[in-house]
């Protein structure tokens, strides 16, 4: 580890923002925030705020990309120039953004039932409005919510949770400070209802015991987010469903 953090990351079992190691930041969700998109969602994990929009299924503009048996999924993870605390970020997709786009796409592909729409594309745009750590997992939660809002068939909702290691302790939902100065991080994408993991990455040194603990903590944190996702989706549609039945 190179630099020393400006504030201690863990004192007496409390983290720099006063949270306990297994405490998730407050999660806020809203669906249907963009009129022109087929589906959209705004998700906040504390100060990390992400907007996701889904377009399609629609015709693939580049014919050579389309697949005869299923739809293609295109994901664009992008950070707004004003999203970071360190001045203006260049809006050109950086190496990191391109990689995260691909990682999120691979996390979503097993969840979305692409076989239903051959020769089409489903486009997911993930825009980071405010970055305070754990942006890729917040993006996954937002993208799955937007896909469900768009009425695209899915096997389950996907929840993103990040686990990290700070001063030797496993903590859930890293913020920017812990992400930068912590000893490791491990983002997860979890299909909570089915108990499956579609994304798991790791940075830093982890013992097998710590990984087991991390997975356990991720599932525990995912449960509440998963319930909130369902409540958010249903509360939007309860009204429209009544008018559909009558």
């Amino acid at each position, binding site marked *: 580890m190179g630099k020393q953090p400006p504030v201690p990351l863990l004192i007496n079992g409390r983290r720099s923002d006063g949270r306990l190691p297994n405490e998730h930041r407050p999660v806020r969700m809203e669906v249907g925030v963009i009129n022109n998109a*087929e589906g959209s969602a705004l998700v906040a994990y504390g100060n990390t705020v992400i907007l996701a929009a889904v377009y399609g299924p629609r015709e693939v503009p580049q014919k050579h990309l389309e697949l005869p048996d299923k739809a293609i999924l295109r994901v664009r993870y992008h950070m707004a120039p004003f999203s970071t605390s360190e001045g203006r970020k260049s809006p050109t997709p950086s190496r990191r953004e391109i990689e995260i786009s691909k990682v999120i796409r691979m996390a979503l592909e097993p969840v979305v039932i692409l076989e239903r729409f051959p020769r089409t594309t489903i486009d997911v745009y993930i825009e980071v409005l405010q970055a305070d750590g754990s942006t890729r997992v917040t993006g996954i939660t937002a993208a799955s919510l937007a896909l469900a809002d768009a009425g695209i068939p899915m096997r389950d909702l996907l929840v993103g949770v990040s686990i990290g290691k700070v001063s030797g302790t496993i903590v859930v939902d890293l913020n920017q400070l812990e992400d930068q100065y912590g000893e490791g991080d491990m983002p997860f994408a979890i299909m909570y209802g089915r108990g499956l993991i579609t994304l798991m990455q790791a940075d830093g040194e982890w013992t097998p015991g710590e990984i087991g603990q991390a997975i356990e903590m991720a599932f525990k944190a995912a449960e509440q987010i998963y319930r909130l996702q369902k409540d958010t989706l249903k509360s939007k549609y309860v009204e429209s469903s009544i008018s559909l039945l009558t």
Partner: protein
Amino acid sequence: MDGEVVAPGDVVGTAEEYLPGENVEVDSEGKLRAQVMGIVIRDNKEHIISIKPIKNNGLLKMNDIVYGKVVALPNDRVIIVKIISVDNNGNKVSLKDDVTGIIPPAQLFNGKANSAGELVGIGDIIRARVISRGPPYTLTLRDAQLGVVYARCPRCGHVLRWRSGELLQCPNCGAVVRRKVSLIEYWG
């Protein structure tokens, strides 16, 4: 319990109770799970459970009447159309995203055509019916109500007027053009 709203992944029953219908699948544990946001519909006679989606996707269905612009006539045989709107009980609803349609030579009209260019021209707006799942959608013009609804003069570009039967005339230069004209609708 009919009419409850479910989200993707919600357990709506078990494999012993029902057969999975539309938008329902069986997972590895034998639970029936919803695939889309929608309303549960249980058919207790047939023991089929299905989900009626709240949002229907923007794709076209079979037998939809569509309006589109002719963009190309490759080999003078097939017609490639950019579909821009769908007919919904007499109202034209424009699509969010354009889709491609193809009219094969056999679907041009009830007869044999030597070339597609005799019956439609590039830039014409046509009324057609969808006969396949897509995209790209296969369209047909084999109906009196289907065909060209708007065309411009190939010589001077003026909007053509309907004269009689399959003939259109240019009020500007007097040219007479043959087209597969829709009998119920012509905008010129």
